[in-house]
């Protein structure tokens, strides 16, 4: 039924008629750091240095590009295909992609942190440029002409003074099987045909007509349906369960009980769901009541004992006048969900050769493979992970859990593909959320309200519990008879950080300190959620600077520019303000404007967001009337791709900021579906204008997480402008706004 599934592992290798047939790429070692004497190569080419690991030139007049990064709806496949087509001088349509397959593609680590373009883009560019050079050398040999003066058009190489040959006619053999040298210079930006233009995304047409696009629609022959039965609470223990009646239910093939891990496998999807429900009802659990509750979370964070206090930045002011005034404010960001529209899904098969093949939509196929192998207690070679697209994930959702669960269930059904797709409740209640955070800001100012000393204290539980090769990070592995303990999560250091991502304000204050109270107790399960700590930190920093500007009676744009020394940062702020019409904006009753800015991770894309809101005092509803975002992502490969990411991030952030908070009581999460965890609807989405600042020839900067932080702050600042009331606790729900306005 599904062509992709008819290709078995070996079949994949012989099925494609590529010319560079030999396939002895040492993928396992490719992830290792290169020997020190070798030249540093661009992006991930530095770790996977063989050109043939990235590019194959096929006899069927196509080029296969192999990348370790995966498509999440961010358009990465299209963007790197644009780069490849340009550097190789072939038509865009000839580029075919294989991505995120542990058996075929370079190990590029995770597709995370807005790193895809910075890490994969330069690698593809360099590898393609070098491949082109190799083809020219082959042509020179064949035509007996010098490479100087050769031109290439859509794979046809023409020598100066006549004579031509195509890539497809050249016997490539093992010619691409060599390390990149770093000596070939990629083209200047002015010579690009595709880079810099909005090429239609290659994955979109199929998605619009019901073509094969997502893992969710894969139906390999003989597939069975698994469903997991989670405990009622995080730490509940299975006391007893009578599985006999469940085993007799229609279609049920297996009831799996392993410690407190319960699952069913059935012939049909609805049979698996019905059996899982019955199994849940039949199970008796020892339940704990240990959660602080959503309303108690802010106090809990401030009072919890941190595992570490991290001096993210310690740059106190050296001498000078004492501050005339100290201003303080505390901000709160609640737990938020990834809340993918499609629940997580995976399909695993234990083949006769003992290899477990897993189709998954994880962002970290390589590390997840390792964690699965360890969980199953098998060699790494006995697990293969292949990425297939899923619904947008926005970080570490349950994609990896689904892969692990499918792999577990596949072990009891050898030879049969076992599919997992969670229920909505299963996803909402069990996914790892974006951590709640408390941000305490303090500033000492001079008599004119200028910042002298700036302090930010960040209170947060972890932001990263990705598998990272550790089975203890899989939800189910923690409930097994022989459980895998969850490793204590770390907080990344500079320059990316985790809880303290974007904790350092980009403003050039005379003194700045950032202290991170890193709490490794986790009342709720948490992990990387789009932007990690950046959303909370930028919300706090950009709200606080707005408060200081207003206290100083200075326009918030002007006040920011006083402290921004980075020209590109200044441009981003100014551009957003100009296009918004900041300086000629007229105040109207009930309306306000606000601005927010950040450079994501202080190293990636720059983004400023300006918006206008209307606040209804009667019902507390905030209506966002319009928003303008400026974006500087360095050299832009796909303008529409950048716009889509910035706009999408802005809308998602509006949803977080206006509506979203994971609710829980002392026992369990109660936000278990879209009714109890509402997100933004069409009528609430304002007109949005994205203004691009292109920097041709400069490095690609990540874009996917640039707009969330600035958006949240711009909204809160606009609400303050409209009402005179400062809201520091998210989300800004009508109830909260109404209460704040009548206080």
């Amino acid at each position: 039924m599904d062509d992709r599934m008819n290709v078995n592992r070996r079949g994949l290798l012989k099925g494609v008629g590529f010319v560079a047939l030999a396939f002895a790429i040492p993928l396992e070692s490719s992830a290792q750091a290169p020997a020190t004497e070798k030249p540093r190569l661009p992006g991930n080419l530095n770790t996977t240095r063989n050109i043939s690991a990235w590019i194959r030139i096929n006899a069927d007049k196509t080029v296969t590009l192999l990348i370790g990064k995966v498509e999440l709806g961010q358009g990465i496949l299209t963007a790197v295909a644009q780069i490849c087509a340009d550097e190789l001088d072939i038509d865009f349509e000839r580029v075919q992609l294989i991505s995120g397959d542990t058996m075929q593609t370079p190990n590029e680590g995770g597709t995370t942190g807005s790193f895809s373009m910075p890490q994969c883009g330069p690698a593809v560019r360099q590898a393609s440029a070098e491949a082109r050079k190799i083809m020219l050398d082959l042509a020179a040999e064949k035509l007996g002409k010098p490479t100087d003066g050769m031109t290439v058009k859509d794979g046809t190489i023409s020598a100066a003074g006549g004579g031509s040959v195509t890539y497809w006619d050249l016997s490539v053999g093992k010619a691409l099987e060599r390390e990149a040298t770093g000596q070939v210079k990629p083209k200047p930006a002015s010579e690009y045909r595709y880079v810099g233009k909005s090429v239609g995304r290659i994955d979109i047409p199929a998605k619009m007509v019901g073509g094969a696009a997502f893992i969710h629609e894969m139906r390999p022959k003989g597939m069975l349906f698994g469903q997991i039965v989670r405990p009622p609470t995080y730490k509940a223990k299975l006391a007893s369960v009578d599985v006999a009646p469940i085993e007799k239910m229609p279609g049920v093939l297996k009831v799996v009980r392993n410690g407190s891990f319960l699952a069913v496998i059935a012939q049909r999807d609805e049979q698996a769901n019905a059996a899982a429900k019955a199994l849940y009802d039949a199970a008796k659990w020892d339940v704990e009541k240990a959660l602080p509750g959503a309303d108690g979370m802010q106090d809990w964070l401030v009072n919890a004992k941190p595992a570490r206090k991290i001096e993210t930045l310690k740059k106190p002011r050296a001498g000078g006048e004492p501050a005339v005034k100290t201003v303080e404010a505390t901000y709160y960001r609640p737990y938020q969900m990834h809340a993918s529209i499609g629940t997580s899904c995976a399909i695993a098969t234990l083949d006769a050769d003992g290899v477990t093949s897993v189709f998954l939509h994880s962002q970290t196929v390589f590390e997840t493979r390792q964690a699965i192998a360890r969980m199953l207690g098998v060699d790494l070679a006995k697990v293969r992970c292949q990425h297939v697209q899923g619904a947008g994930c926005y970080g570490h959702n349950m994609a990896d859990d689904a892969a692990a669960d499918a792999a577990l269930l596949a072990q009891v059904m050898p030879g049969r593909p076992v599919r997992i797709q969670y229920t909505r409740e299963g996803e909402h209640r069990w996914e790892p959320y974006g951590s709640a955070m408390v941000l305490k800001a303090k500033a000492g100012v001079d008599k004119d309200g200028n910042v002298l000393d700036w302090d930010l204290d960040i209170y947060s539980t972890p932001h990263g519990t990705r598998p990272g090769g550790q089975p203890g990070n899989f939800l189910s592995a923690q409930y097994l008879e022989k459980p895998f303990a969850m490793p204590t999560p770390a907080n990344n250091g500079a320059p990316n950080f985790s809880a303290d991502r974007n904790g350092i304000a980009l403003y050039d204050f005379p003194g700045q300190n950032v202290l991170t109270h890193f709490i490794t107790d986790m009342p709720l399960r948490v992990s990387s959620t789009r932007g990690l700590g950046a959303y909370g930190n930028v919300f706090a920093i950009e709200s606080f600077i707005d408060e200081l500007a207003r206290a100083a009676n200075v326009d918030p744009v002007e006040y920011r520019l006083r402290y921004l020394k980075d020209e590109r940062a200044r441009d981003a702020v100014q551009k957003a303000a100009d296009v918004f019409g900041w300086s000629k904006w007229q105040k109207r009753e009930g309306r306000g404007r606000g601005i927010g800015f950040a450079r994501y991770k202080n190293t990636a894309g720059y983004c400023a967001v300006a918006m206008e809101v209307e606040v209804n005092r009667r019902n507390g509803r905030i209506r966002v009337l319009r928003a303008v975002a400026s974006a500087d992502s360095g050299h832009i490969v796909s303008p529409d791709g950048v716009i889509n990411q910035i706009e999408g991030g802005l809308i998602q952030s509006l949803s977080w900021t206006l509506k979203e908070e994971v609710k829980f009581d002392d026992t369990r999460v109660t936000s278990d579906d879209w009714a109890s965890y509402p997100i933004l609807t069409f009528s609430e989405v304002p007109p949005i204008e994205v203004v691009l600042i292109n920097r041709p020839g400069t490095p690609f900067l990540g874009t996917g997480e640039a707009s969330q932080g600035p958006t949240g702050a711009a909204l809160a600042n606009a609400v303050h402008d409209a009402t005179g009331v400062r809201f520091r606790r998210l989300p800004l729900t009508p109830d909260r706004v109404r209460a704040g306005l009548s206080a």
Partner: protein
Amino acid sequence: MGRLIFFASALTLLAASFFAYALRHAELPARAALPRPVFPADLVQRGEKLASLGACAACHTRPGAAPYSGGHGLNTPFGVIYSTNITPEAETGIGLWGEDAFIRAMREGIDRRGGMLYPAFPYDHYAKVNDADMKALYAYFSTRQPARAQAKTNELSFPFNIRPLLAAWSLLFLESGPYKPDPTKSVKWNEGAYYVEGLGHCGACHSPRNALGAVKADARLAGGDADGWHAPGIGAHAKAPATWTRDSLTNYLIDGWDENHGLAAGPMTAVVNHLAKIDESMVDAMVEYLIDTQPKPDAGERTKVIQLARDREFSGGAPAGTLSENESRGEAIFARACANCHKRGGQTTPLALGAVMNAPHAGNLIAIVMKGVQPPTGAPEKSMPRFAQSLKDDDIIDLATYMRKRFTQKPAWTDAPQRVKDMRAAK
């Protein structure tokens, strides 16, 4: 019996029409089509607000068609009546109407040429609108974009397709004269009463009508029917389970939703979408009037009712043994199709508090279940999908029976099967 009343009424109408014949109406002079008159901006602006207050577009604009170009079909007990083009287009609209013709139509239900208009156009209410507001409305409609759209022919049964009979209808039922303020009440109260009784024409739906389709004079605002929906009693006849408060009624009228009253669905959606566009002070005035005239309850009672409704809705199924076989089926359907959203933490209004479950007939519930809810602009997250094709006729009927029993103490509905049938036929 119904037929007898009907013929008796028709006879009355016929008799009255003889008298009416003597009062035939003159054609008023056409205004020059061009140049179109110019009006002061503030007059047009006032007219725009009034047009929203009256929700003129709700009937005079068909979805997707040019604003105010008419053609929207209104289902009445007498057949389908199509709204007319009220853009200033000369041939098919009101482009040739002078102000006098416009005001006469609004107050007396007579078009420019002297023909009678059907009282689906609620001129019995508009008669109360004062001259200043009439002029503002005329200014507004005269400055709209002209659209060419021929009026559709009404689909009415005999004898209602005989227009001259309408003169008699007016003679019998039209109370003329503008709104008379009550000097014992505040200015705001009077402003509100003027809107409710006049241009707002709330009574057009919220009042019972006699066999000839006229509002029963002694039961104004006591609740009525429109387009198969029950419009509950309001003002003096309000009987919502949770008594309306100023805040809750304001929320309802502007946002189309209040947590203790639910959603403005059916024909009311368009009304609140229009009210959301006018000055809040105009709605405040209506609220002042409606709240002041409603029966005064015991304040503690309201809290108790709301608490009870929440407890009952969110505390699982009905007590064992209290449901019939069909009601049990209904309960299972409710659990499968409804309880995913109508649950604690689901941000819905307890069903026991809304007008739908408390209506005298099943029309509202059946319509919502089958057609779903496209929410008012003020409450965009309150969508509900259509279940017309997801549920079979029996499913819907059992569901309605169960819900009525579970969420109210009112007598069972008997009309659910017919309503489902009608809804399927109307598709």
